[in-house]
């Protein structure tokens, strides 16, 4: 695999674009972008990102592998689909954003402390453990995602809300200790393992 965007010879050459086309979900669409900037202007979060989708697509063409894959921009996508609706070239931008994030994760280049990434990992762990999301433990994890002290502070601040939720049976503290998973928990794990194996194999064969 290419060792990044430092080598001058690779600038604006198609290596990274080819890599994205081959490995990123919906990545083949990147080449169809006509750089109109409509997505950048439509993304409600775009101005909070380091790079708008338009820019990310240009960076891919410019061969900026490392910069793209280590970027936290695509992790910021909230899947609002504004861009997809508006892109005159019909690029599935939202999906490409997630595809890129996923690929960066697989490559081990994703930014470690990016909050949505951390949350996504927690969510995945929580979900796949029993086959059902445990909202209580996921919520608590989320409170403590930035460490113990900040977790306690945030928890105290939200205490009245928690109590009200408890009263209206929207919060079950018992679930912290005994959660009810779904019935075929073992099967779900098998399914997930199989899916992972298929995906890995696919990836390996593409990059053999």
């Amino acid at each position, binding site marked *: 695999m290419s060792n990044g965007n430092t080598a001058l010879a690779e600038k604006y050459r198609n290596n990274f674009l080819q890599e994205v086309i081959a490995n990123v979900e919906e990545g083949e669409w990147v080449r169809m972008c006509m750089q109109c900037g409509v997505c950048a202007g439509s993304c409600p979060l775009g101005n909070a990102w380091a790079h708008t989708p338009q820019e990310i697509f240009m960076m891919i063409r*410019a061969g900026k592998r490392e910069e793209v894959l280590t970027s936290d921009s695509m992790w910021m996508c909230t899947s609002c689909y504004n861009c997809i609706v508006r892109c005159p070239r019909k690029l599935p931008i939202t999906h490409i954003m997630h595809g890129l994030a996923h690929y960066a994760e697989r490559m081990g280049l994703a930014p470690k402390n990016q909050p949505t990434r951390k949350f996504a990992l927690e969510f995945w762990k929580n979900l796949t453990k029993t086959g059902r999301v445990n909202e209580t433990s996921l919520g608590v994890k989320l409170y403590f995602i930035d460490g113990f002290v900040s977790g306690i502070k945030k928890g105290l601040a939200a205490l009245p809300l928690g109590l009200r939720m408890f009263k209206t049976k929207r919060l079950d503290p018992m679930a912290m200790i005994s959660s009810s998973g779904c019935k075929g928990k073992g099967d779900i794990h098998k399914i997930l393992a199989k899916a992972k194996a298929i995906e890995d194999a696919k990836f390996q064969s593409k990059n053999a």
Partner: protein
Amino acid sequence: MSEAEMKIGAYLCKGCGIGERLDMSAIAMITEREAKAHIVKEHDFLCGEEGVSLIQNDIDNEGVNRVAIGGCSRRAKTEAFTFGDIPVTRANWREGVIWIRPDTDEARETTNDMAADYIRMAVAEVKFMHKPEPNEERATNNRLLVVGGGISGMTAAVEASKAGYPVTIVEKTGALGGIAAQLHKRVPEKSPFAEPVDTGVAELIAAIDADKNIEVCLNSTLAKTDGAPGRFEVTVATESGSTEEKTFGAIVQASGFTPYDANKLPELGYGKSADVITQLELEKLVNDGAGDIIKRPSDGKQVSSVAFVQCAGQRSDKEGHLPYCSGHCCTTSIKQALYFKQSNPGIDTNIIYTDLRTPGAGGEDFYRSGQDKGVTFTKGNVSEVSSEGDSLAVKFKDLILNEDAQENVDLVVLATGMVPNSGPNIDSELTEEEKNAEEKPISILNLNYRQGSDMPQLKHGFNDSHFICFPYETRRTGIYTSGPVRRPMDIFQAKEDATGAALKGIQAIENAALGRAAHPRSGDLSFPSFQKSGCTQCKRCTVECPFGAIDEDEQRYPQFNEARCRRCGTCMGACPVRVISFKNYSVDSVGQQIKNVEMPDEFDEKPRILLLACENDAYPALDMAGMNRIEYSAFIRIIPVRCLGSVNLIWITDALNSGFDGVMLMGCKKGENYQCHFVKGSELAQIRTSKVDDTLQSLSLEPERVETHEVAITDIERIPQLINDMAATIERIGMSPFKF
């Protein structure tokens, strides 16, 4: 025709609400007693069958030979109110009076004044209108001369031949095909617009070879061109020096373009590295490799990466660059990138552009097809191309990422532009540089016209043709330019253009044969004639005619070439001694209308403003203002003119002398983006009227009393406003002291 033989019938329509709004019996009396129409008849619905036959009957049985109609605008019901070649005028009571005036008691009197004046004017005008007859200069040669044997010229020839007209192609080089013949393939012009396709040149040449109706003269140029539509006398000279006289009905100039000289772009590495080439040079390179393997010129290495630099020396204000976009180069680069992708999809092809322009129905599809096949597109501004080791370094500013960038490639292709082969610019002196240049622009047509050897140019050396309204109508009737000599274009557009030009040629041929105007007043039989005895040989008409229709005879009198004339009347407006006139449009036909407006005295508080309005745009806009019931001053009196260019200063002077308080002129936009139907008419009129100030001064009148405006057909709210503004100005500065 003498006054005695003249019999004017005036027909006053009461339909469309006119009857309710106007005092018809009073107006009928005025028409009879003051305007002196011989027959005056009122009718409830004149454009109906009964009304029309009422008029026809008077023509057939009562000897009526002039018709003045009070009713709707001259632009409405034209079919109903056409009676063979009998001159007809209109008093525009509907669009021009009742629809633009409020229906109130106070307004009644001024509204009636308006209507009465318009019928006075209509009767006065028709007295000075005579049946036009086809001009003598009828010639019937129907062969089309096509100058240039490229795509455009060949297409014009094939299309004209298909329509049944014989054609002669005169081509400077030794073969047909032009620049298109040098191409490997061309951009597709049919769905799915995905792949480069065959140029079609061979096919066209074969069609011409097989066509007995098309004669081809290779290695030939035009040594002299003289005459007019239907009778162009052309001397065709061959390289060997022999000449031949030929006669043609019309000419299509398809002289094409010369590729921009890339040596002017050393910063882009041209001339410094053999691997920096132009688009046209790449075509050759691809042809040499039979399209399969593309090798770079310097060392024959197979190209593995190529960058296309768009707008090389184009769309730039830099000295020596072309300021315009050549229109085809973006799609051409896509096409060429696909040559590489077709030979090997692994070749990196990067098109560096600032704005990608893919005109035409399939342009966008072709762009997408390029992307789909892996051509990449980078929005960037290239500043430098230089050799770096074994490769070329392309330095540019990435306009999306907003940073300086560089790409190293094997081959760089410059998208340079097209320079029209339009011959010398007849409207400007040669610059010092041009005078000293080794290669002076060579005349294409060698016209023996007083105004110069070639077609007038508009901008950047491209030939002038009416861009906005009549794109094929050049400024030399019977000679039509087509292809990149008219504006930058691609093959598809050039073919369309050629078809249009061929059709214009046919139009000129057919109308010349009938002694009528070719266009835009197609079929008009009137033509300008001049009274030699009065002419002072001032040459204004010969200089000002926008269409070069007037030459000089041996005695240095103007010599009109009716078949070249567009009937704009610019010569009539220009003539200081007023000896130029048309049968149905003359200094008198308008002047008498001005004189026949009833002039209330100074204390009546009824000012009078004259508006001379171009009949192509200003007058229709006024009619539309009426349709929209937009009110304007009742003090205005509007006279449509063929073109503002036909306005003779005497009309303005006469109007001021006879007590008009203000004079307005409305014509089309002038200048580079002109909309004037006669190209130069409104511009010349404005130059002329700028001299009115002297007249005003000599009469001690305020300069505000005369105004010229550029208007468009869409100005249906602005024009009434301008009129009202003028009325307000008159109120402010007071009435003219010249009312007697």
